[in-house]
């Protein structure tokens, strides 16, 4: 598949936004039980605002993927069958709940009403998790894109979002000088990054062992081991040759894979650990930036690696 930058930014930005909120809400819950240090409402409000900006940017980015963005409102219609439609509904719901959550903490309403705030947070968290499910299922439900058609796709979208979000939470906590929270978020970010690495590596191993179900034999229905395409029927390009081929070399694909394997996992983990250990607030911020770049590479690779069966019909120009 040809990676579309609108979708790369959409999925990485909203993933980080959801992850950031889930990290904040976990800390708030922990503080209420007494397991984690207190979460100042101002910090939660700032965090919610940052998460809102990220998801908003993701939403804006998604419009660049549409041929007819002015009709985007129509895409909420088929939520019964389409995961894309479900995502289109859940994303604004999550943003609205997130805005309420942020406002509740910014206005001081949360201090007066702790239980309704927690309920609001729980609803927002449920929406954040539902959004991960919708985003992942958009890809995982396409059964003949075998690289994507796996529960690992949903797990990875969730874990990678949680990793980048909690790294961002660590960076925010470090910047606003809450050392106890920094350590809590840092530990969470390390855990999420490690889990994301395990499952992303698992999906890489799985995809390396895939055997395409469709072959040229089933594509044209001729039972012969040797079939070659002589002509695809036209000399110029077409939508089919542009949308489904990344047109890059295998070597580039391999280097992008190593770039994201290094940038998204060990490098931010190392920076996070040193940042928290030595109390350097700049390091978690750098960790987030590098991890985000790594996740962009990861998403690019996710698309480029997917081999669409329609490509069987477009192997030779003439």
């Amino acid at each position, binding site marked *: *598949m040809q990676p579309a930058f609108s979708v790369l930014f959409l999925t990485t930005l909203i993933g980080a936004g959801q992850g950031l909120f889930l990290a904040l809400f976990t800390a708030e819950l922990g503080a209420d039980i007494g397991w984690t240090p207190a979460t100042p409402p101002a910090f939660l409000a700032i965090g919610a605002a940052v998460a809102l900006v990220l998801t908003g940017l993701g939403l804006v980015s998604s419009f660049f*993927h*549409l*041929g*007819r*963005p002015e*009709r*985007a409102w*129509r*895409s*909420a*219609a*088929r939520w019964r*069958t*389409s*995961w*894309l*439609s479900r995502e*289109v509904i859940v994303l604004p719901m999550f943003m609205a709940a997130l805005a309420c959550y942020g406002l509740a903490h910014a206005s001081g309403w949360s201090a007066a009403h702790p239980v309704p705030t927690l309920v609001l947070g729980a609803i927002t968290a449920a929406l954040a998790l539902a959004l991960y499910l919708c985003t992942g299922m*958009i890809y995982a*439900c*396409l*059964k*003949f*894109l075998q690289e994507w058609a796996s529960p690992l796709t949903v797990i990875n979208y969730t874990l990678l979002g949680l990793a980048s979000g909690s790294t961002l939470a660590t960076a925010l906590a470090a910047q606003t000088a809450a050392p106890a929270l920094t350590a809590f978020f840092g530990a969470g970010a390390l855990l999420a990054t490690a889990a994301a690495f395990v499952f992303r590596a698992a999906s890489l191993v799985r995809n390396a062992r895939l055997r395409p*179900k*469709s072959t*040229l034999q*089933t*594509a*044209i*229905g*001729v039972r*012969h081991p*040797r*079939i*070659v*395409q*002589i*002509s*695809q*029927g*036209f*000399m*110029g*390009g*077409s*939508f*089919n040759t542009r*949308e*489904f081929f990344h047109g890059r070399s295998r070597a580039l694909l391999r280097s992008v894979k190593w770039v994201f394997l290094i940038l998204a996992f060990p490098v931010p983990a190392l920076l996070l650990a040193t940042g928290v250990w030595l109390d350097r607030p700049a390091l978690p911020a750098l960790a987030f930036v590098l991890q985000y770049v790594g996740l962009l590479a990861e998403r690019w690779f996710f698309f480029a690696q997917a081999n*669409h*069966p*329609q*490509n069987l*019909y*477009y192997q030779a120009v003439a």
Partner: protein
Amino acid sequence: MTQLALVIDLNVCVGCHACVTSCKQWNTSGAAGPMSDRNPYGADPTGTFFNRVQTFEVGEYPNTQTVHFPKSCLHCEEPPCVPVCPTGASYKRPEDGIVLVDYDKCIGCKYCSWACPYGVREIDEQQRVMKKCTLCVDRIYDASLPAAERKPACVLACPTSARLFGDVHDPDSEVSQAIRERAGYALMPEWGTQPANHYLPRRRTTIAIRPEELARADNPLKVDGKLPKPPLRDPALDDVTSW
């Protein structure tokens, strides 16, 4: 229930692209149009087509077969492109099974094209919506046309009658009989899409000749064994004598 479809006979398709050009002509001027082209006379032309004819070589020289393979929307009975559409622009008509795109509802998100394993949906770069074969829905029901012309443009254009059109759910239709009696098959059956369009395979015409059929033999079964058998080289009086 009706399921209109094409049956394409690969045995007689000569790869002339008449179906491609007639499809483009009819649909670019009809309800589905325009099917815009970009840079049509430039170095890198590209455009929207509903139908493509591709060519494959099967086997190894000198035992090769050239297979011309017309490819358009297969109007699947379980179309994977329809449920994924977020707007409902992509739909399958219950009355005749044609899979269509409502160009006024399509947002051009391309998700349906990702969900089609056959690669038969193409986005129109100018109108910025997804387009695909309509089975000439604006033509096959047009009562102002003579009944014989109420067929898709590609079917009418095919010089070798390689394209048959009809209801594949009616067991007595021309297309159902062709599928049944001439080994019609569906593409990529592994995905369970149940394409309505079928393809008829290449057939090689062979005659089985046994060695004794090559030598002239009067009365080969020797029914009248008592009669003397003439030498092989003797002139025979075919149809006159009865040895």
